[in-house]
């Protein structure tokens, strides 16, 4: 252990942390080394060696890490996976936060996780002119933990923040670091937004002169 644990020490939390961060002497090095274990999308529990999954069979499963470690189907949503990485860090004495990522605008009701196809010209009008199922079509998504094609849209997404970096343990994505990480994470993860009213959608504005259209809130 790098330091005294800050949370309940479940066997899997200690195992994932100690095995992957062996020899690390810094907090950031330890968190990065633990996250490496998540990026191949095969993470197993110690108790039954079962691979844990993300939205397996389009089912939410666990919301908290403790439930992900306990459920017989070992399946969970992004909150449970973010909780798992946070708690692996906490067992090493490192404070990381689970972060809720949601659209800022009241006109955006959902985040469309990559990948989506927007077909021009859109058949609708207004701020969300692409009609979902008609000219806004979900494509093969970014692979998730034990799931090659997770659901394409959510009300929001939960990730982990440690120091100056965002980590997304639900998917196979690199950590995002730096002062522009809010915008960088948004552009790396979301293809667009579903409308709050009606069935329209719009693409994410990825132009460099814009700010992030999602909020980042601590939600441990």
């Amino acid at each position, binding site marked *: 252990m790098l330091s005294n644990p800050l949370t309940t020490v479940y066997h899997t939390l200690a195992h994932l942390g100690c095995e992957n961060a062996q020899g690390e002497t810094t907090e950031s090095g330890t968190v990065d080394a633990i996250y490496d274990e998540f990026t191949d999308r095969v993470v197993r529990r110690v108790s039954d060696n079962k691979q844990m999954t993300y939205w397996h069979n*389009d*089912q*939410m*499963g666990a*919301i908290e890490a403790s439930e992900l470690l306990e459920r017989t189907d070992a399946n969970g949503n992004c909150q449970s996976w973010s909780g798992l990485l946070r708690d692996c860090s906490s067992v090493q004495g490192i404070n990381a936060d689970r972060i809720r990522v949601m659209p800022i605008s009241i006109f955006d009701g959902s985040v469309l996780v990559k990948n989506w196809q927007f077909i021009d010209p859109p058949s609708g009008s207004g701020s969300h002119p692409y009609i979902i199922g008609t000219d806004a079509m979900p494509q093969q998504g970014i692979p998730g933990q034990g799931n090659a094609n997770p659901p394409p849209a*959510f009300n929001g997404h939960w990730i982990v923040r440690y120091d100056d970096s965002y980590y997304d343990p639900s998917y196979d994505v690199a950590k995002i670091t730096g002062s522009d990480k809010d915008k960088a994470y948004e552009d790396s993860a979301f293809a667009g937004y579903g409308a709050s009213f009606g069935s329209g959608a719009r693409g994410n504005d990825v132009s460099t002169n814009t700010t992030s259209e999602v909020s980042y809130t601590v939600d*441990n």
Partner: protein
Amino acid sequence: MKKMHTVIMIMPLFAVVMALATEEGNKADSVKNSTNRAVQLEGFTRSTQVISLDQSTEAKIASVVPRMRKVREVGETVGAPQTIEEATDFLRKHVSMAFPPAVCTEREGVFYFSGGRSASRIKDFSSGFAIVKGQRTIYSWDKVVGDAGKEGDRGSRP
């Protein structure tokens, strides 16, 4: 002796009637205090319908109560929901969902949501969420506790 026997026979009946009367009273209070009403919910949950508590819904909800388990406790920095609109917003902010609950209703001070636990529309309360009025704890249940199978096709409108 016969009079005594009659009194003994009547006593349990009286107790049952009183109990039912009390239950009816509680239900009447519950209905009176219910926040169920036809409102148009917004955002991600715009397709979630607030329904009144009919006998069929009552039976469905009663059958899932034993399968409910606590899945999330939200810190005190957030207000506890008092109405079905607030409960819907509370759920939206604190659970990552791929598809909104199809219907919701209030029953005896508890807000029940059908669906939201899969990427498809679930109207029959076979899976869902519950939040006690005035509390920040979220309960859920699945079709089969622990192992949830595929319930249907993905909904087309997130």
